[in-house]
Structure formats: structure tokens, C-alpha cells
């Protein structure tokens, strides 16, 4: 067992599941989307991105790209959330919630690709 692979798989999968947890539920209902979950998704995604640094293989490059996409969308979602709560006078309306959640939905897609890559990598790995 390779500890590095365990940590890597753990963070990639956790990033996807947290993202999914935040995304699931009515898209415009703020009660169903916990901001702490969004925060956790951002942090775990950042860690997963850094873990993918410095891999020279082709699959490693695609891994990094998907993580960067997920980061971009999740940070965008967090910024929109912050704007809705602190700046806009209306607060977390249904419209703002929908925007935040749909951005996290985009990140979820990228995270799913990451997981698929992880699975592909694992399946194509032959134990010698």
C-alpha cells in the first residue's frame, strides 16, 4: 500500500463528495445549502490541487487541470455567497442561492472528472 496514493485518493474523493453534498437539494432554497460545507469543499479542493502539483505524466496534467477548474468555480461560488450576505441588501435570496449552487454544480462536474481519472488510473495500474 502506498500512503501517498491513499492521501491523494482521499482528498480527491473528499473534494467531490463535499461538493456534491453542498450541491444536492433545491437549487434556490438557502436552507438546504450549508455554507460550512461550501467552505470545506473550497479548502479540500485547494489541498487536492496542491497534491497534484509536479506530476509530469499526461494524466497528471489533466488531473491538475480539472482541479484548477473546480477551484475556480468554487471560489467563484464563495465570492458570490460573500457578496450576497455582506454587500447586497437583500441577503441570500432565491436568485443568489441558485447562482451559488449552480456554480458549485459546475465544480462538481470537474470533480467527477477527477474521480473518473482516478478510477481509470487505478484500473490501468497493473500490479507486478
Amino acid at each position, binding site marked *: 500500500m502506498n500512503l501517498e496514493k491513499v492521501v491523494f485518493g482521499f482528498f480527491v474523493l473528499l473534494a467531490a463528495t463535499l461538493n456534491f453534498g453542498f450541491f444536492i437539494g433545491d437549487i434556490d432554497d438557502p436552507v438546504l445549502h450549508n455554507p460550512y460545507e461550501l467552505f470545506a469543499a473550497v*479548502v479540500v479542493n485547494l489541498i487536492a490541487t496542491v497534491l497534484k*502539483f509536479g506530476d*509530469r505524466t499526461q494524466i497528471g496534467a489533466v488531473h491538475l487541470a480539472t482541479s484548477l477548474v473546480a477551484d475556480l468555480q468554487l471560489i467563484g461560488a464563495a465570492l458570490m455567497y460573500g457578496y450576497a450576505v455582506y454587500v447586497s441588501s437583500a441577503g441570500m435570496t432565491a436568485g443568489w442561492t441558485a447562482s451559488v449552487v449552480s456554480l458549485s454544480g459546475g465544480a462538481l462536474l470537474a470533480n467527477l472528472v477527477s474521480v473518473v481519472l482516478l478510477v481509470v488510473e487505478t484500473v490501468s495500474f497493473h500490479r507486478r
Partner: protein
Amino acid sequence: MRTPPAVAVGQAGRDDRWHRRAARRVAASSAAQASAAIFLVMRRMRAPLIVLIGIFAISVLGLTLIPGQDGEGRPWRMGFFDAFYIMSYTASTIGFGEIPHPFTYNQRMWVTISIYLTVVGWAYAIGSLLSLLQDRAFRQALALQHFTRKVARLREPFVLIAGYGRTGELLGHSLDALGRQFVVLDRDPERIDALELDSYHADVPGLPADARDPGHLAVAGLDHPACEAVVALTNDEEANLAVVMAAALLRPELPVIARVTSRALEERMRAFGGPSTVNPFDRFGDHLGLALRAPASYQLLTWLESGPGAELPARGSPPRTGHWIVCGYGRLGRELTADLRAEGLEVTVVEPRAAGDEDDDLVVGDPAEPDVLRQVDLVRSVGFVAGTDNDTTNLSLVAAARRGNPSLFIGARQNQAANAPLFAAMEVDALLVPSEVIAHEVYAQLATPLLWRFLREMPARGDAWAAEVIDRLTALCGERLEALWKVRLSPEDAPALPGWLASGRATLGDLMRNPEDREQPLHAVVLLVLRGHEATVAPEPDFVLAVGDELLLAGWGAARRALEIVLEVDAVREYVVTGRRVPSSWIWRRLSPAGRTAGTTEGRTAEPADR
């Protein structure tokens, strides 16, 4: 080439493609080396970055979870944005204070813990980054990438110089003075630093890397389409052979010039497509032979080979008959003795160590000993060459020989550039500086193909002819060779000329006049005219020029600019050739058709055409 002509053309094409691909592969592998170090850096930054992200996440989360109070004492929870904002300025030690409301004790305890955590996290991350930036492998990788980018961006033709010792430096300055671009490889990083400190007009890319590695050669532009020649000048004969091999195999069409000092290696190099080799000892022997036969030819040769800005060297007069003494029977001694004997001179060799091969006139003994010099009959000798590979020995030999016979013709070998003032003070008649001989020879081959051709044809013309060319040069251009350049009389390069050239009365004398005042000569001399494959050396003023001729000129920089104007502007050419002033601007040409037909008198009185 090596394939017989019977082989189909398709074969040659495939060969060519194969070479291209091989070169590209070599370059790619070297570029991968460069990016490997970048990946290593990213990999090493993983741990510090993750620690930093983790610490931030924990601190921010804690702040949002700990209950607080607002201004009126009502319970209040900090949001993510406030928490992130507070942690950001706290971690970076800016510290704006407790906002938006004063903290409770719970919060202050948490912030205290977070301050220590985040400061440690930042220090770790920044420390790792700084130490990585100073990492030798990383800096080398950056230098390699920088160099690769610079070489790839070169658009004008350039020369690839492998080995930037004293020779490379001299050659570099000559090429730079000609406005030619070059790229340098040297194993010694100090030499590359010296290159960067040197004052070149052009930005010269240099890489501290071993030229024996084809990957480094490829990065330095061996596979670049603008690479026009490869020069191998390292101290290491094997390395020069490796460069010749790499160039011959990857870019067989490129001219290669290599420094070489042994015959055996020269033969091994010739196996690779016939590169041009320069052996300084062989050349010195040839030059001394030429100096014996034709002092003026030798003077002209050294003057033109010395590059732009060279002073006219003094004309030596080595004794043509008599007895010579050569000290040191190494590589130089052997070449020199053979060359002098070929000129029909008697030579005695003095060598401290007994050589394996027999020679009738070999005196074994330390030439510094008075007995030995007496034995070789110094008093009745005419020439003396101190040719050992030790400068101190050579200087003391010269001094001893002078004391024994003040009228001797003295030749000496200078090995170290630092000793140049000592040899200059000795006023040696013929000085061999191997690095200079190589640099001059390579320069002559690279400067323009016409100069090389001129220097090859010149010795056959005899001494009196060379003396006359020197007189012509010094009369027109003074004793300093300012510029040496090539002009092609094609319709593209000389748009003002074709009509006049086609008349069949276009003599060289008419062209070489000053465009300011045609009674004055242009301060330049045509050394060679190349028509097709036929070369005319130092043509007379009544030489008739034709379209497509290539001219090699030596003279003032101002003359070069003046000639360019003559070649390009019709009105100036008309004045220079016929003495008529014709208007050059479009409007004046439209307005004064009468002036042109009225003949020379009216043309002369007209206003000078403005250009």
C-alpha cells in the same frame, strides 16, 4: 556526399528528414531536462502549501464557530468573510485590530492560537520557496530555459561557438564588429559570466554546459534554421571531435570549423564530412614560410585576418638563407621544422627530452644552458624560435639568444594571454599566439566567403603584387582597416545600377568615387570581384563590372555608407558616374525633362538634388 550519385533522390530526401527529426528529438529531450527541475520545485512546494491551507482553514473555521457578541452585547456569530479577512491580516502580521465588533475572551484565545499557527505556516512556506529559488539545480534549469528561449527567438543567421576561451573571445569580438550574431557554449560558468560582462553590441546568448552533449548543442541552436556555422574551439580535442560529429550527423549541410592540434585527431574529424580544421602550429609554420618567401604577402594576410579596426602590422624581413635554431620539439617544433626545411633552410632542433624519432640535427639538452647554445653555433645562425609550451622558458630563451647574437631573427610562442606585455616588450620578430592564430583563421573563413577566397588566392600572386595592394590600401584608407564588407551588384541590392552596368562601359574606377565630390576617390579598395565562379583579385580601375558581380571591399565605414547611397539612389549614381546633377525627387524629375536633355552644362548649374 557519402552516398553514391546512383542512389535515387528520394533516398536523399528521406535522409534529410531523418536528420531533421533526430535533431528535433535531441532538442526536445534537453528541454525536458529543463522542465524537470521546475516540476521538482512544484513537488517540493506541496508540503508547505498544504500546511498553509490547512492552518488557514482551521483558523477561519474556528473563528466562525466560536460565539461572539455585537456592540450591544447580543450574541453574534462571525461570518466566513469576516473570519477570512481577520485571519489574512493577522497571519501576514499586519493586524488591523478586532473588527467588526470587539472580540470576546473565547475569540481572543482562539485568535492567539491562530496567530502562532499561521506565522509558523507562512514562515515555513516562504522559507521553502526562498531556499528553492537559491537551489543550484533550479537556477540552472531557469538559465537553460532562458537561454533556450533566447536562441529560439533569433531570427538573423548566427554562428554557434562551442568553447569560449581566449580564442572564442577574440573571434566573438571580430564577429560582433562585423554585426554578426553568435551563440556561445562553454563548460566553465566563469567564462559565461565573462561573456555577460563583455561589451558586445548584440545580446549574445551563452550557456554554461558541456558541448560534448548533443542535447546542449541542439539547445544552443544546432537545429535552428538560422544557424549558419558551427565552430568548435574548446581546449579539449575530444570535445571538439564530439562537436564536429554531432554537427555532421545532425546538420550535415552546415559548415563546421574545428580547432585541432594533432594530426591523428584531424584525420578522425575528416571522417565526418570534411570539416574545416585549424591547427595553430601548422598555420604558424605556413605563415612563417610565407613570411620568408613573401614578406608583403604575409603582411597583407595578417592585416586582413586581424579583423575590423586592425593596424597595419610591420613588414618583417626574415633571413631567407642561413641556419635556424628551433627550441622545443613538440607539436609546434615538428611543424615548424618541416616547414622551414621545405623552404630549403638548415634547421637545428634543441629539445630537453630525447624524442623517440631520429633526427639528424637534434641536440638533446636544456636550451637555457650556455653550453648547449654554444654547441648549436648561435653566432653563425640567422633565426631562432623559442617554441616550448612554457612562457617563462620562452622569454628566457629569447633573452639568452639575443645576448649570444643580437642580429638574430627571433620567433617565439606565447601561451598565456596574460604574458602579452612581456612578449611585446621583448620586441619579438614573429610571435605565435595560438589562440590568436585560430581566431584570425576562423574569422577569415566566417567573415565572408570572398575574404577567404581572396586570402587563398593571394599568396600565388607574389610579393611585389601584395606590396602594391598594401600601398593602394594605405594610400586610400590609412593604416587602420576600418571595415571589410561585401556588395552584390544585383538588381535587388543595387537598384540604381543595372541600367549602367548593362551599357558595357561600367568601369570600377567610375563607381569608386565620392558622391559628395566625384573628383575625390571613395576611401575604399575593391579586393576581389567574383563573377559566377571566376574571381578577379584586386581589379584595376578599368575593370568592367557586370550585373550579379560580388565585390569584396576594404575601407572606411563612411565609404561603405556612401557606396550604399550610390547603389540605391539613381541621382547620386548619375552624378558619381557621369558628373551630371539630376533631380532626384519625383516632382523635380517631372518638371525638368528639359534639364535632362539639355546636357551636362545645365545639369551642373542646377540646384544640387536633395536627398
